[in-house]
């Protein structure tokens, strides 16, 4: 058992622009606890008049990085907390957080694989923690990531995913761009469907452990498609968030 979940003050030590609307923030966490890939932190902002806004953000970094975490935050139009992070936050800011939180949508190398990760938009964040953990653990668990984004320039972590794939033949990365594909695009160009899932399963076998994170409609399409392809429903774990872009 761990210590009770308590709010603490973390300090922003680095900010990285991932895409036009997505930034990653590194926080130094005084009462740091090793997380499981897939967990999140709650973040709470308090205005001078006492008004508070709280949101949950998935941890992007791997658990081995002692004393700090990365949270990748997408700007949400009209979002009270995300607009603070995109318009106001700077290195040195002190922010109230609590975590790590969650015990359902989690994976560690000891659980094993093969692993199928399916992401829509910023749903890739907890899956990136799993991929970074897998790489850091030196594990070669056969893994496939199927990642749906709207446009090429909206693909979060694109370059890092290319590097991870190039360095590891046991990792397959499949991209699909649903709105617009650049000239010469070799990935998919449609929403996730059964034939796409069939191709991905062919790359890693038909009985993977599955983690799906994204907007509800994508999560349900992917989960139902996989069950239709005889993947064991007990091996499918899902995490939903609001509609893409909201």
């Amino acid at each position: 058992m761990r210590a009770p979940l308590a709010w603490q003050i973390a300090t922003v030590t680095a900010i990285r622009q991932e895409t036009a609307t997505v930034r990653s923030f590194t926080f130094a966490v005084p009462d740091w606890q090793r997380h499981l890939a897939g967990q999140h932190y709650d973040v709470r902002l308090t205005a001078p008049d006492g008004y508070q806004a709280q949101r949950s953000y998935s941890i992007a970094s791997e658990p081995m990085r002692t004393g700090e975490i990365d949270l990748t935050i997408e700007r949400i139009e009209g979002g009270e907390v995300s607009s603070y992070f995109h318009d106001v936050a700077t290195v040195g800011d002190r922010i109230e957080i609590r975590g790590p939180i969650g015990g359902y949508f989690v994976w560690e190398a000891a659980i094993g694989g093969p692993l199928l990760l399916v992401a829509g938009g910023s749903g890739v964040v907890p899956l990136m923690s799993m991929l970074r953990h897998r790489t850091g653990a030196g594990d070669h668990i056969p893994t496939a990531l199927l990642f749906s984004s709207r446009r090429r320039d909206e693909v979060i972590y694109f370059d890092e995913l290319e590097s991870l794939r190039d360095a590891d033949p046991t990792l397959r990365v499949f991209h699909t761009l649903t709105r617009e594909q650049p000239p010469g695009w070799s990935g998919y160009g449609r929403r996730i469907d059964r034939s796409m899932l069939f191709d991905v399963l062919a790359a890693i076998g038909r009985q993977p452990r599955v983690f799906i994170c994204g907007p509800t409609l994508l999560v349900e399409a992917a989960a139902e498609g996989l069950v239709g392809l005889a993947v064991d429903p007990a091996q499918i774990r899902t995490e939903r968030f609001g509609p893409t872009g909201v």
Partner: protein
Amino acid sequence: MNERTDSDNDGSADTDGSMTLDGNAVAGLLEEIFGTDLTGQPCDCAHCGNHAEVGTMRAFILGPGVTLRCSICGEVMIRVVQTPDATYLDLRGTASLRMPRSTT
């Protein structure tokens, strides 16, 4: 996890499911109340008998409280309302809930 704009809190008008979150979104609130993570723990729906982890339940979070509904039958399983000095918990829709015991 991310910000949400659900305008409707209890899911009664959520006809196409496109605005639905799941139990993972309220893991922090549940841990605050129960003192341990609940999302990875199984519970039984009092309406249809579905046996599944709390993380699979559908969550409706904006407004004055949180409503968690069964992922199979859609009935309300858990409601939480917090005021400045108290937490109100309605578990009528949950037949049973597992919580791990401390081994230390």
